[in-house]
């Protein structure tokens, strides 16, 4: 054991150590300047195998390496990406796609019809196979042609094929990688490729020099302007903001609402707040009594001041929400929001009156009762800052109206289990990171076919809704599809399966010296699609 016998000597030695260590080093852990952009994420992906996972961290990275056959453009219309042309049979049951030529996977293998067949069939067996349930068979009669036969006519098939869940992967690479696929190996057609994954530290993506087929609306269709794109994992928000404002990190969309002012006002950074397709709400379990009664749900909605919740939970950096889908999604019907207005206005006195009329009277303990039963709400919230705060702010509002609220903040694993068992009455949550298509969002959340997945947290079962959503997808007449979709939105608005809170924003903090950030964030329609092509538009 080393003893320093003289305390003053100890202090001198320590000062010398600090001086040496504090000298500017050769650079930060990452390569500084030039052809590298460093982006910060708040969490590390679990796996990069899209067969297994569709969480936000995975999507943000994978979308830069993998591409679907079609892509949603800034006008919310789906256009070709890897496809040259396509045609559908009259009943929209058989689709023939002609692929673009000259595109290669990152491993040099050609992108062709057998690869499309392999990818789609793989995805059909994967975690998000639900979207592809409509496909009966995939054939590749030659290298350029893919024929999709559907179980029934589906005029909006391109929306499905534009989804990230249908991204193309290299068959040879998947088979060769075995268990390493998704960790050490990811091979797609995207503008960047996986270089290295340093566990706990960062993922390094490098430019695909052969990429030239970027979507039509991009000024730069490839290759990417920077040689490397590093994605660092910074789980502590304070550390992430410190790295961003100090200039060690170039960009992040993990800036929370709470840090908006700080990043905006800092000399080194700019901030963009862009509308997203995220709908944030309190989901009501419509299966549980007494919340299967529309009048009780309406009373609950009137009791919650959504504006106050937005201010408290999102620092006011969010827009109002009227129905359970965001107003930015393709196919949104503004009239549905108008119809919802009288039902969702904050009116605590009306809430109390409605509960009184329904026979729920205030008892001796301060909360409402009926036939000896309390008007109890088992209120769950994710232990994520936004949802936690929503719960903490909304709970007293509900208590003021006479509900007996038991708020529990839970981590996802525990919460998912309780939601799947229907043990919640109210859930602080939201539909985040959707593709931006109204019918898809409604099907996910309110079609009875989706009961059993967590996102059907309202346990919504309404044959009329099912019928409308089926019509809006499968009717061969576009006008009838639109009409059905509008009616579905009206039904979602007027049956109040949720307490609407906010259309959340995407917040991008970035170094002032970066170029191209405004270009890529001008497309508010879909978080996923926006992130994919940041690697093409942003440079130093």
């Amino acid at each position, binding site marked *: 054991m080393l003893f320093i016998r003289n305390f003053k000597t*100890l202090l001198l030695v320590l000062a010398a150590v600090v001086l040496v260590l504090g000298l500017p080093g050769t650079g930060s852990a990452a390569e500084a300047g030039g052809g590298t952009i460093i982006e910060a994420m708040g969490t590390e992906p679990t796996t990069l195998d899209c067969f297994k996972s569709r969480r936000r961290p995975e999507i943000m990275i994978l979308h830069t390496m993998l591409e679907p056959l079609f892509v949603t453009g800034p006008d919310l219309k789906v256009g070709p990406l890897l496809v040259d042309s396509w045609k559908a049979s009259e009943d929209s049951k058989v689709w023939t796609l002609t692929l673009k030529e000259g595109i290669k996977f990152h491993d040099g293998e050609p992108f062709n019809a057998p690869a499309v067949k392999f990818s789609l069939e793989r995805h059909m067996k994967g975690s998000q196979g639900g979207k592809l349930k409509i496909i009966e068979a995939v054939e590749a009669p030659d290298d350029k042609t893919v024929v999709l036969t559907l179980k029934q006519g589906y005029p909006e098939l391109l929306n499905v094929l534009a989804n990230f869940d249908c991204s193309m992967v290299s068959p040879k690479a998947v088979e060769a990688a075995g268990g390493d696929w998704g960790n050490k190996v990811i091979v797609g057609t995207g503008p960047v490729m996986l270089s290295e994954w340093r566990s706990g530290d960062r993922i390094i993506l490098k430019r695909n020099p052969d990429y030239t087929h970027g979507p039509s609306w991009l000024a730069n269709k490839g290759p990417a302007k920077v040689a490397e794109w590093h994605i660092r994992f910074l789980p502590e928000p304070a550390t992430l903001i410190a790295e961003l404002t100090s200039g060690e990190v170039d960009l992040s969309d993990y800036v929370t609402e709470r840090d908006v002012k700080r990043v905006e006002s800092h000399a080194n950074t700019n901030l963009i707040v862009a509308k997203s397709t995220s709908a944030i709400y309190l989901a009501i379990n419509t299966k549980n009594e007494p919340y299967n009664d529309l009048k009780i749900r309406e009373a609950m909605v009137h009791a919650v001041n959504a504006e106050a919740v937005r201010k408290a939970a999102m620092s006011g950096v969010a827009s109002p929400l009227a129905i359970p889908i965001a107003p930015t999604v393709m196919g949104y019907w503004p009239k549905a929001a108008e119809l919802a207005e009288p039902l969702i206005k904050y009116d605590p006195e009306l809430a109390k009156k409605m509960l009184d009329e329904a026979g729920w009277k205030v008892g001796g303990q301060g909360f409402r009762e009926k036939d000896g039963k309390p008007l109890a709400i088992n209120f769950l919230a994710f232990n994520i800052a936004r949802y936690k705060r929503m719960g903490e702010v909304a709970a007293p509002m509900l208590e003021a109206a006479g509900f007996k609220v038991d708020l529990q903040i839970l981590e996802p*694993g*525990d919460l998912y289990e309780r939601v799947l068992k229907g043990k919640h009455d109210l859930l602080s949550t939201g539909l985040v990171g959707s593709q931006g298509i109204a019918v898809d969002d409604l099907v996910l959340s309110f079609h009875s076919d989706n009961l059993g997945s967590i996102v059907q947290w309202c346990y919504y079962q309404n044959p009329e809704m099912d019928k409308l959503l089926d019509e809006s997808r499968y009717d061969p007449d576009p006008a009838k599809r639109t009409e059905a979709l509008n009616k579905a939105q009206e039904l979602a608005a007027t049956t109040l399966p949720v307490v609407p809170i906010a259309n959340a924003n995407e917040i991008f903090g970035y170094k002032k010296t970066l170029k191209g950030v405004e270009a890529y964030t001008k497309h508010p329609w879909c978080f996923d699609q926006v992130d994919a092509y940041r690697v093409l538009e942003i440079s130093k």
Partner: protein
Amino acid sequence: MLKYALRRLLLLIPVLFIVTVLISSLIYFSPGDPVRVMLGLRAQPEAVARIRAELGLDQPYYIRYLKWLGNALQGNLGRSLQRNEKVSEMILERLPASLEMTFFAVVVALLLAVPIGVVSATREGGLTDNLLSLFSLFWVSMPGFWIAIIAIMIFSLYLGIFPISGRGGPLWDLEGLRYLALPGLILGIRQVAIISRLIRAGMLEILGEDYIRTARSKGLAERLVVYKHALRNAMIPTVTIFGLQIPEILSLSVIIETVFAWPGTGRLLVDAVLKRDYTLVQGIVLVYALLVILMNLAVDLLYAYIDPRIKHE
């Protein structure tokens, strides 16, 4: 000594077995499905069922545990449920970073705690003693998370002495040391507070002993009296407590690794728990248990060096 060490090593086996049974049952019986967590909110029930079967999660707990145990005895800790990577490789990738930070924290703790404790004891009741006591009380009371954030603000952002986060390289590399300095210091500073107080208490007791009075009356220099005669005896209880602090260092390192984005096994363990990655949790806990037991054995063996009267039988 050798027989004692071998006997302690043999005790590893039942201890590790009990640890793995406890941990695997705790995580198995905790609410939450690893496949649901992996697949996310939109996963279809059929996909969940299929992947559960592929991962063997539809089998009863005891069958899964016994399979894992059988493989572990052959050095195979299985594959991560989430990443499908070998658990041993995942741990080996992250363990050096954690060991570096722990080692640095221990060195900092000892380098600072010993002189602080000695000075406090030899200036008992004076201004120096009171200031150092306040110093210790402060670091023991403050939550590690808060200290870490404040340290980043002061030393990284305002003064620009240290990098904010991340790992710059191995410990023996100057750049690596720059990145390690602040998280290692924060991890070790709480131990400085605890150990210095122990040394102070031990020294105060020993400095009143007869043999110390004898040494002084023989004309020995005060430095020799304090460091050669008194400190060595004061170290025995300190070494005991230090051994017990090792698990605390490992658990606090999880928080420090999160704040400083340090790529160690602490963060890996927390992620694995939250994602219900059973095999990864079992593997990391097994390694941690092994480390704690071996470190405590090393501490026990150190007694014989400090006090030759102690013989391990």
